[in-house]
């Protein structure tokens, strides 16, 4: 490895940041701008925030001699996507008071609020702190929010597996108290030891994502994570996890060295101690071997491919002090949320509520935000977020089910949910315009309309009940995991998308770029033709992605 290569500028910002403090305190007192100072840009991410600006307004504001409309997105750390009713109520009020009012459920089971102005950051974080919520390490070159299969009815031992999300999140938190000092006005504690054996002063070369799945449902898209844990259950007992490393979907247009990659399963870790040790040491390998010169080539997937899977596994075993066991057999058969009511083995009820693009609002005919607040106010449920950006109104005792059902009924949700097509329920889009600085094209603002135009095509070909996975992003960064979809649309320029097809339904195979730079008419024409071919030629049980791979991609 070319160790002499110049380090990326972010590296020195991290090492000089004095525990991620930088000049954030000073940035907050700069009254002349709504932005933070240049180097704090990178640092504020480690505190769970992105500085953004409304790109739609840039030109107009410049003519008015106004600076860009800077605001901050705050993303919470919610391991496994679990929130109490009180926490939801707090989030609801904070969103209304300080942000755009919309609560956005992310593809990693957390929530984020947009449009928070610089002077509102502290009150926002202080309000969250009152209900034990924080945004530490929700962004930045650290372990991000840990995702985990969300539906308690997936397995009798769901609770046991789910607990790992929280354990891992805590294990991998940075040790600095900067978050508490800067945002919560905590006094600096002199004797507190901020030595961080995991992150040191340089943190990771790039973001790091961990997901935990309970087969057979791959709802968390476990193989798209840097580190995936696949729960292995024997005789209704959790015995450990298969360890998968090197997943990651972000690519850069025009940079052939970048690629999407699904994680490689390299072995099995038995029991909690081995599992947590293996997790920890995967991060130390990435810390020590990851590329710190080129951030586009810094994710674990490149580290892994540079080392080779075998070498990587050996290094991991050396660091762990034990050998990984042979991979345990597992099988994924689905990658979906279980909409509507479901009962778990303990008898509790759960209602999975479809939230288009994860946007919980009162917009439109069904006031979701109002309904959820009312449900939270009963105190008779908790909330779980799914990797498909939906919410599960969860852990409802049988005697309380009716009360919740009435609220859902009153807000028109039960009626609405009956009419939502399968394609819409399985679709994901990233935020994109106007706030995401990377976006090249629309995504969440556009996908609902596009789906409205795709639905008639599916009906025409008799495919409306198929759970086809469609995902859209505004750039090649892959936040909505488009490369692991049966139909992926990746934005290239305003109104134009690359069309990827041939991924499988379970998320174990990447798709292939099929057409470039399509406008809406072309997208619809190509899909129409593909749907027709699928409807005409499929064998019984052929799923769309598999059929496409076999008949379209190989045939063409």
């Amino acid at each position, binding site marked *: 490895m070319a160790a002499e290569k110049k380090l990326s500028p972010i590296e020195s910002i991290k090492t000089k940041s004095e525990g991620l403090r930088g000049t954030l305190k000073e940035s907050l007192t700069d*009254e*002349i*701008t*709504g932005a933070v100072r240049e180097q704090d840009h990178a640092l504020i991410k480690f505190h769970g925030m992105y500085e953004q600006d409304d790109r739609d*307004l840039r030109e*107009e*504001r*410049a*003519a*008015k*001699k*106004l*600076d860009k*409309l800077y605001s901050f997105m705050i993303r919470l750390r919610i391991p496994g996507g679990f929130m109490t009713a009180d926490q939801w109520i707090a989030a609801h009020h904070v969103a209304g008071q300080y942000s755009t009012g919309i609560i956005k459920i992310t593809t990693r089971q957390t929530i984020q609020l947009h449009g928070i*102005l610089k*002077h509102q950051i502290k009150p926002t974080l202080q309000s969250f702190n009152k209900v034990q919520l924080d945004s530490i390490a929700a962004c930045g070159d650290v372990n991000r929010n840990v995702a985990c299969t969300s539906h308690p009815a997936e397995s009798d031992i769901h609770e046991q597996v789910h607990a790992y999300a929280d354990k891992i999140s805590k294990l991998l938190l940075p040790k600095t108290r900067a978050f508490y000092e800067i945002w919560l006005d905590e006094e600096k504690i002199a004797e507190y030891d901020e030595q961080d054996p995991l992150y040191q002063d340089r943190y990771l070369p790039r973001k790091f994502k961990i997901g935990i799945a309970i087969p057979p449902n791959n709802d968390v898209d476990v193989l798209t994570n840097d580190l995936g844990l696949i729960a292995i259950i024997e005789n209704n007992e959790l015995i450990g996890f298969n360890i998968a490393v090197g997943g990651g979907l972000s690519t850069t247009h025009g940079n052939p060295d970048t690629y999407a990659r699904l994680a490689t399963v390299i072995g099995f870790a038995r029991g909690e101690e081995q599992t947590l040790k293996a997790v920890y040491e995967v991060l130390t390998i990435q810390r020590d071997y990851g590329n710190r010169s080129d951030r586009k080539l810094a994710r674990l997937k490149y580290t892994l491919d540079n080392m080779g899977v075998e070498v990587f596994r050996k290094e991991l075993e050396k660091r762990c002090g034990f050998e990984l066991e042979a991979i345990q057999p597992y099988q994924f058969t689905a990658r979906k949320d279980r909409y509507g009511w479901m009962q778990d083995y303990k008898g509790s009820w759960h209602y999975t509520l479809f939230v288009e693009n994860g946007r919980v609002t009162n917009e439109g005919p069904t006031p979701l935000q109002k309904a959820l607040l009312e449900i939270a106010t009963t105190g008779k449920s908790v909330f779980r977020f799914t990797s498909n950006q939906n919410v599960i109104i969860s852990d409802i005792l049988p005697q309380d089910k009716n009360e919740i059902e009435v609220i859902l009924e009153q807000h028109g949700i039960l009626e609405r949910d009956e009419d939502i097509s399968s394609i819409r329920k399985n679709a994901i889009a990233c935020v994109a315009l106007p706030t995401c600085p990377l976006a090249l094209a629309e995504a969440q603002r556009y996908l609902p309309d596009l789906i409205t135009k795709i639905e008639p095509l599916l009906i025409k070909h008799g495919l409306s009940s198929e759970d086809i996975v469609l995902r859209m992003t505004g750039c090649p960064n892959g936040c909505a995991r488009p490369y692991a979809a049966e139909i992926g649309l990746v934005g290239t320029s305003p109104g134009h998308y690359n069309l990827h097809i041939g991924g499988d339904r379970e998320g174990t195979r990447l798709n292939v770029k099929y057409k470039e730079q399509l406008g809406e008419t072309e997208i619809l024409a190509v899909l129409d033709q593909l749907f027709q071919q699928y409807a005409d030629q499929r064998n019984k049980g052929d799923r769309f992605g598999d059929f496409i791979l076999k008949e379209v991609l190989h045939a063409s």
Partner: protein
Amino acid sequence: MLAEPKFKVLSELIGQLSKEELIWVNGYLSALVANPLPNTNTSSITQKITIAYGTETGNAKKLATDLAGKAKKKGITVKLASLDQYKLTELPKEEYFITVISTQGDGEPPIGAKKFYDHIHHNGFKLPQLKYAVLALGDTAYPLFCKTGEDVDKQFEYLGGQRIAPLQKCDLDYETDAHAWFDQLIANLHTTAIKTVVTNKPVETPKTVGKQYYEGTVLTNINLTAKGSAKKVYHIELAADGIEFLSGDSIGIVPKNDEQLVQQILSLTGVAPDTKIDYKGESYSIVELLIAKLNIRYLLDKSVKHYATTVGQEINVQKTDLLSLLQQYPVSSKEQFLKVVEGLTQIVPRIYNIASSPVAHNNEVHITVLQDVFETDNGVEKGLCTQFLESKQEGDRIQFFIQPNKRFRLPAADKDIIMIGPGTGIAPFRSFVAERDATGSIGRNWLFFSEDRFTTDFLYQTEWQAWFETETLTRIHLSFKNGAENYVTLSQKIIEQGVELFHWLEGGASLYLCGEKEPAGKEIEAALLQVFAKATDGTHETAIAYLEKLKKEERYAKDLY
């Protein structure tokens, strides 16, 4: 040649002198003939005059000071007094009393002269000993030109005073006329007995010598506030040939009435639009007059009274406009309407601080105009000038004149300045900082600004940012309500920064305040006094004295409206 008694005295004296003394007296008298001693050849000589001034913008003060200096040089004892300081009990003791006084907006005296004005009008005393003259400053663009001066002149006559010079009315370019008048007055004091009662026909500067109007072309007219703001603030850029102004000056714009409204009025009365009318010595068509010269919206009470008398009706409405009157109380003939027109007042010009620097902005005039909207019984309405300016687009023309603001000037290039400009009060400071940036002035610049919302109402934000980055703007402190009940007000910011602010002032900095008089201007001045008190001995009196000292040293200037 000498009369007998004088000759006798001289002969007696000569008889007592030695030869040497006679030679000295001979030389002395020769020199005296060549260069006469002051006052020695006049008989009844004035020894003491009082010049009292009432000022708002500082013009009257400056003029009075100049005149006092001039008189002193001529050996006259002069007492110079500001009317806000003047002891009213002195008035009956005055012999020669010269008043230099300006007129504000609607014919009002300057705030500082209000007490004096009321005193002479309402206290029922007589001033038979008073020999007086009045120099009135005003602006011909206003209908009640030099009204206060006229009132004072008339009232002194009524109180039994003797006018020693005719009332002199001056427009904005007062210097020449004022000095000529004063020279004449002094000359009269020197000549034998003063002819006390002078004609009461005032001297007025001919109109043509009045202010110079420029024809500006609109280069830009944009609303500076963003969507979501509760207000609109227009930034208007004008280019005009041959224009001269300085940073700190203002412009006056005489807004025009809506053409459609005028057409509507004329069609109601049946008067032909091209009917010629004489107005102030010039001939206009009625349509021109109603569009460009006369106020037809929000009529003054006297216009309404005149209307009532003309049409022979009792009208008890306030805040009405010409069209409504015509609709409710129609005129009986075209002639009657023309009579009504005689009772209309002139459109008052609106004054705006220039927001551009002649050096930095290539002689363009920029102004920062807050949209004037208000609730009436007919719903939300816009001010006349707002309506007028809002409609102007790139390439349109606007007539304006320059209103010099002599007290609102940048100090020497190496001096620091502190600028407090809430809301549109920021305008002259954009001019100041642009000017100092363009000329490379080394003095430091500190801005205080407040508005409603940071995201939508930060006027000229990107420009301040650029000046801050390049260190032309040294410090900036801001206050935004941002819709919150509790926020740090601009006054509080000033108090927070008090130590540093006082430090700047002690280092010779100049302090400027511009913006709306109420409530911002008042609150800020109170905050400044608090800062001064804290930095000195803690008393309000010392703080006031400190502010007075700054004023005296011309290091504190305010332009509140």
